[in-house]
């Protein structure tokens, strides 16, 4: 970490001192970027050092499993892979429901390394892929920022993105997820887009489309690009900044990008059939109209073409909009999907799609998490944005739009913090660069004008409007006092230091937990590893039948498939809501109703996560209310959310809990035979309560395995043959039988007959 902190001041000085030696500045650029790469890579290794080289969390397990499948069976078999182990009995076409970019990337690296005779296991590639790509992201950010402002700002931005927690949260070693490579693709696409807008060359546009293709193959977030770029074009049109360059770059990018994106099986015909992509085609049509009108205008520059142009544009825009609305109404274009709808109406998902609302990373962002993820950058990026808007040109319109939309989305969903982070780094880089430029320039007054020219050359290619731009900066900085300057420098250096300390701390403490291995700390600071998840999955893989079907809540589907190698009913690819609702209904029903569902779905084992013994708050009882909600959405007749609350509307598991709650399957499986967890045995440490229903017996299930800390509990569902005879239960008997006590002893094993003729020696027995 200190490496980066040291690198930044150097970079700051670089602007002032070595401005005229291009070789030297290139050297410094390369050095800083290399160091940023190394620092970013190193700070992401906490997870590996603290724990081990292991795949983290949930989704990465699926990515890893499919990557391993691809490496083993080849790409075409992966493309056609029908996974009968997931979503039993529906199955999942993996090749058609996955963004294959991630698997292809690591598969290619694996192939390349093996071609060079470096025998590295695919797991290690998967674990270290995201940290490696963080370096590429840093470079892409550098390119993007230097395209926008200056190389100095670019170096700042690169250093920021390398270590900022908002990005490292999704790219620590082992976090093998789409986002890890997608942020690189996102930044690189934007860089190429700016390049092509600036130059108006077909070459850069095609490069943009190619990079966009990689992004489409990597992450569903590509929709952000395909809406932001058209928005950029649209705003430029409104601002009257139409140019041939814009026309060429957008039309080429749109057509090539469209054709490319449709090559991904998962995306398919969506780019021409869904509302999310309609903005792009609408802007394309509009741009065509504007281009045509401009051409007509150029034929006859005089006359009343100007008004016609504006009018024509407005009419065309209206016509395009109406066409899209009409097509949507006719059903040709699919309306907004729920996930996108919930971005505009934040209450939408909670009412209509509980499965989206149930995911923790879909919750609205809190203020503190903005600061936690971005630290000082959250305060400085408005400065950068201000300067960008002040010295506007075509590219800076783009970054302003990017910043505004990303801030909005990050406010709606915690998860989208990830798209905000890069633009915050870019703009903060610009802000810091401006400040340092301002503060350090006066050290060498003679060189100041030269420096301005240089920086002007860097970003001034595009517009003629910005000639005025550097001048106010110059006039402003003359006002700075002699003593204020070193003070400001020191203050900013301290801020940057605090920033890097915070980044390291946040990455190491908050984002480096694999979440399948938990660590707890004792009073003396000693660390205890709770490896219950792997213990349970290991048990499953060793002790159950090869084709055993495991029912659990969908969170654990990928892990069971990845580590336990067993068939699951639902998993983190939540494509089928009704199937999940069925599992939720089984969990929320009483034992006999659940047994009906479980035998319908051929369930062999049920797995629940129970954190009561160790105080783990992410367990199934705490998630349970979402299961009820999702189940109620599909089966409103059988499941009612209100039944699971007390009369006062509290969610309790102790003696005051509702009767339905205390008798549902999830409750029973969590607290069955539970007698651990603190001073009164059976105390639930997560909810700080004594379970209300204890000492019950299970009829249709039997406990198979419970891990060391009670974290994972596995139950076997009894088969129908095990209820061999239809016994008449005592409560239903019409004829009461006396409960006779056996008179047999260990020595005297003789039974008893009524009216048995006693045998007297010497007398003849009379037969009845």
């Amino acid at each position, binding site marked *: 970490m200190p490496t980066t902190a040291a690198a930044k001041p150097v970079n700051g000085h670089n602007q002032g001192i070595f401005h005229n030696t291009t070789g030297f500045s290139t050297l410094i650029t390369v050095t800083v970027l290399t160091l940023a790469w190394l620092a970013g890579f190193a700070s992401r290794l906490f997870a590996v050092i603290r724990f081990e080289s292991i795949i983290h969390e949930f989704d990465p397990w699926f990515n890893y499993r499919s990557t391993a499948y691809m490496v083993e069976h080849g790409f*075409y078999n992966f*493309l*056609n892979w*029908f996974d*009968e182990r997931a979503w*039993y*009995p*529906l*199955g999942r*076409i993996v*090749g*058609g429901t996955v963004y294959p970019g991630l698997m292809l990337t690591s598969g290619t690296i694996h192939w390349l390394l093996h071609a060079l005779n470096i025998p590295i296991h695919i797991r290690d590639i998967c674990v270290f892929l995201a940290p490696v790509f963080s370096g590429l992201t840093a470079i892409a950010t550098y390119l993007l920022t230097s395209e926008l402002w200056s190389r100095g700002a670019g170096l700042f931005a690169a250093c920021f993105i390398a270590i900022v927690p908002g990005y490292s949260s999704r790219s620590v070693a082992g976090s093998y997820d789409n986002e890890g490579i997608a942020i690189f693709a996102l930044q690189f696409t934007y860089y190429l887009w700016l390049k092509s807008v600036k130059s108006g060359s077909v070459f850069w546009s095609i490069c943009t489309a190619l990079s966009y293709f990689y992004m489409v193959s990597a992450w569903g977030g590509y929709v952000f690009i395909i809406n932001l770029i058209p928005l950029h074009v649209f705003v430029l049109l409104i601002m009257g900044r139409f140019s041939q360059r814009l026309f060429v770059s957008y039309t080429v990018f749109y057509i090539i990008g469209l054709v490319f994106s449709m090559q991904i*099986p998962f995306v398919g015909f969506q780019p021409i059939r869904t509302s999310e992509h309609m903005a792009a085609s609408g802007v394309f049509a509009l741009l065509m109209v504007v281009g045509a009108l401009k051409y007509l205008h150029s034929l006859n520059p005089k006359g009343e073409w100007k008004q016609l142009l504006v009018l024509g544009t407005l009419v065309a825009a209206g016509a395009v909009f109406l066409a899209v609305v009409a097509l949507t109404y006719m059903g040709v274009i699919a309306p907004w999907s729920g996930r996108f709808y919930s971005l505009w109406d934040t209450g939408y998902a909670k009412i209509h799609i509980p499965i989206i609302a149930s995911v923790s990373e879909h919750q609205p962002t809190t203020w503190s998490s903005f600061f936690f993820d971005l630290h000082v950058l959250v305060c400085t990026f408005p400065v950068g944005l201000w300067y960008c808007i002040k010295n506007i040109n075509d590219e800076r319109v783009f970054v302003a739009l990017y910043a505004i939309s990303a801030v909005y989305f990050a406010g709606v969903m915690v998860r989208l913090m990830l798209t905000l982070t890069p633009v915050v780094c870019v703009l903060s880089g610009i802000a810091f660069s401006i400040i340092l430029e301002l503060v350090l320039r006066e050290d060498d007054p003679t060189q100041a004008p030269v420096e301005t020219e240089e920086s002007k050359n860097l970003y001034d290619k595009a517009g003629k409007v910005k000639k005025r731009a550097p001048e106010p900066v110059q006039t402003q900085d003359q006002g700075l006092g002699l003593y204020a300057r070193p003070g400001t420098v020191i203050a900013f250096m301290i801020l940057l230091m605090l920033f890097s300390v915070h980044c390291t701390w946040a990455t190491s403490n908050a984002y480096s937990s694999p979440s399948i291995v938990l660590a707890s700390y004792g009073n003396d600071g000693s660390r205890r590893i709770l490896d219950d998840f792997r213990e349970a999955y290991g048990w499953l893989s060793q002790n159950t039948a090869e*084709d055993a079907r495991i029912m659990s809540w969908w969170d654990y589907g990928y892990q069971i498939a990845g580590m336990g190698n067993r068939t699951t009913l639902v998993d983190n690819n939540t494509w089928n809501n009704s199937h999940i609702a069925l599992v939720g209904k089984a969990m929320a029903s009483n034992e006999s109703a659940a047994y009906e569902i479980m035998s*319908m*779905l051929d369930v062999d084992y049920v797995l629940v996560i129970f954190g009561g013994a160790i105080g783990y708050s992410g367990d199934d009882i705490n998630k349970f209310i979402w299961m009820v909600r999702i189940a109620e959405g599909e089966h409103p007749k059988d499941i009612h959310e209100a039944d699971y609350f007390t009369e006062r509307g509290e969610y309790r598991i102790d003696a005051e809990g509702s009767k339905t709650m205390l008798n549902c399957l999830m409750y029973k499986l969590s607290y069955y035979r539970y007698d651990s967890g603190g001073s009164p045995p059976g105390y639930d440490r997560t909810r700080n309560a004594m379970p209300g229903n204890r000492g019950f017996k299970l009829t249709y299930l039997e406990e198979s395995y419970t891990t060391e800390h009670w974290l994972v509990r596995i139950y076997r569902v009894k088969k*129908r*043959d095990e*209820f*061999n*005879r*239809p*016994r*008449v239960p005592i409560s*239903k*008997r*019409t*004829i009461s*039988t*006396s409960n*006779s006590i*056996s*008179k*047999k002893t260990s020595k*005297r*094993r*003789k*039974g*008893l*007959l*009524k*009216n*048995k*003729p006693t045998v007297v020696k010497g007398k003849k027995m009379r*037969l*009845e």
Partner: protein
Amino acid sequence: MKLYIILGLLSCVSLAHSYQETLVLVDNLNIKETHSQFFKSLQERGYTLTYKLADDANLVLSKYGEYLYKNLIIFSPTVVEFGGQIDTEAITKFIDDGGNLLVAGNSAASDVYREIATECGFEMDEESASVIDHFNFDSLDDGDHTRIVVSPKNLINAPTIVGTQNTKPLLFEGTGLILDKENALVLPLLTADSTAYSYNPKSQVKEYPHAVGRKTVLIAALQARNNARIVFSGSLFFFSDEAFNAPVTKVHGDKIKSDKSGNKDLATNLSEWAFGERGQIRVRRVHHHRQGDKESSDTYTITDTVVYRIEIEELKNGKWQSFEANDVQLEFVCIDPFIRTTLLKKPNGVYEAIFKVPDVWGVYKFKVNYDRIGYTRLYHSTQVSVRPLQHTQYERFIPSAYPYYVSAFSMMGGVFLFSIVFLYYKEDTPKSKSE
């Protein structure tokens, strides 16, 4: 080599031997004489009967985890507690492990009987209660109207269990059984007439009897889910020589008269069924493949045509022979049955279905669930996955795309021509300029 053959033969013999091994628990050895015809018919069919007093201190059903007997007959109504290691729990475990049970009691039967009955899903009426029918009693009745005459029409319609030729009236004297209506596994083999009821004949009727009319079951049976069979008769007299040989004369109503009761035939049939001589079917082989292929496959593609064959055997006269029926059905299930079809009968007990896999991918099961009264439950399911088309299996050239092909290629040609023209056509620009 010889030694092996001898050993093999011996083991065969011992297997067969143990198969027919039967324990008979009696009150007193006198029953051996009073029920000799029934026992004789069993012995003639190859059963080795071991008679033991029910209170024998050395009673055991199994040794070292192996059952010594395949079948158990309990003809000891007066037993209060079994001797040795036998108790209700041991008997239910015997059933759960696949043993067959034939129980006969009478009005004196004690609570042990009731416990065994409730474990099997029915109840036996209170001690000293008898089935009384004031309209259908035999002329030899002693005045309590408990020796009742039951028409063979009251038998359950299941020839596999009760046989086909039951025309003679049946004699019955003993307790009634009560069946749980919700219980699908329990079979009322023989019910009393609508005029019957079950009560203590010596006392006045003060309470509503537990069993009245046709709900009074005289002989009940259960085929457990593991196909163990239990026949429970309320009357031990039913199996006795006396009942076998007695002439039947009904006192009231339509004059039913017979020189001999139908008890012997029915008892024989019941024991044949209970001890698994009849109504045993099993799956010999299951084969499924894509039509046109030879090899079996566990993955099919949507809209494939699949051939499914199942061979079913029935135990007839001690030999497994091909089973004949017209109502064996196959289901192709993925949560819900997508296809349900009656299998076509082919020679040699082969049943076949040829059908088209539905156009929905998923994990399916071929499921044959043949559950008929009297037969062992036949359940067979094979899991296969039905996958979507592979990327190479889609149609390559579809007619509706031809305009697009034409436009694409004409565009290419056009551009090619245009570039030639553009590159090599020289306009006479200098001339025009000079002009």
